[in-house]
């Protein structure tokens, strides 16, 4: 994938990190999603303005021994899946101020 893609947390969700997992609930239908550690990292970094490739490089490849191309491919698949559920926005253009701040438990 050679284009920049941007991800942003949807505004109509409730989200919080607990027990090492990001719990996300849709405000539209109360569907519950829980993200594993790496998916949580992606979610928290999804500010709408940082390209997905940069998020993967900085937050995932930097901390995990993974192949960068494979990590980006996995991140794109995850982003597309979360976008299908309406809890993440995915765009070829930046999405400034599109979602709620990420919240982590104390």
């Amino acid at each position, binding site marked *: 994938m050679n284009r920049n893609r941007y991800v942003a947390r949807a*505004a*109509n*969700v*409730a989200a*919080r990190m*607990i*027990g*090492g*997992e990001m*719990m996300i*609930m*849709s*405000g*539209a*239908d*109360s569907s*519950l999603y*829980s993200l594993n550690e790496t998916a949580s990292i992606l979610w928290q970094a999804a500010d709408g303005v940082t390209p997905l490739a940069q998020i993967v490089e900085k937050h995932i490849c930097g901390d995990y021994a993974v192949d960068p191309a494979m990590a980006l491919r996995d991140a794109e698949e995850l982003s597309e899946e979360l976008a299908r559920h309406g809890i993440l926005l995915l765009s070829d253009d930046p999405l400034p101020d599109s979602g709620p701040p990420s919240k982590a*438990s104390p």
Partner: protein
Amino acid sequence: MTAAAARSRADIGIGRITVGVRSSNEAFLQLLEERYAGFIERTASPDYEFEVELTPPGEGSADDDVRVYRKNGRWQLERGDFCAEWDPAARRGRIRQSANPYSIDTVLRIVHTLVLAREGGFLLHAASAVRKGKAFVFAGVSGAGKTTLSRMAPADADVLSDEISYLRKEAGGYYAYGTPFAGELARVGENLRAPLATVYLLNQGAENRVSSMGKAEAARGILTNTLFFAADVELVQAVFLSALELVERVPVRRLTFLPETGIWELIQ
């Protein structure tokens, strides 16, 4: 309150919140007094008040989905068998329904969910009971064993509900309250309140066992059983965060059990 006013309204107090249901139909008010026996209060000024307009029986179906949404600052509560509007600022509302107690029961559940959401509380699909001054909650989907556990409660336990548990955050921690929201036992709970000691997530199995669980698993279990009526982001966020705060502050355990009375020996 005058005698005439008292006859025109049934005040139903659940979780220290009193909802006055006003109707000109005395038979309907009598029905409510019987349905909510143990939760009927006599107050000059209920916290919230609803005027009920009764419609002919058979209009609409209780099997339809519930719709709860905000319109011009007022909550709209709709199902096939009722239509209600509630102005939380004015603390007043109107309900259009037949003289069916199940309709008003659903309205009350929704109203309490909306009120509790602002106070860090929520309703949970769970049985609950008080024993030795402490409340225990048993959460699970239909068929998980809520009614079975309630039926097996020992003589020194007071069942708060076999279906819908009422949890409030108060100074000093969380409290469970009795509710008249009955499940298969078709029996209202005891109108009591006690500090919440433990939430158990039910799982019927081949043995009686209490096991610990991680925060994430506990959160999933609680959220899966939390009542969310409205497609309203603000409300969902409030209830969601309340449920997760409870997980942080109250022990949540997995309770695997055989349907036998010995299970209560593990509850402490």
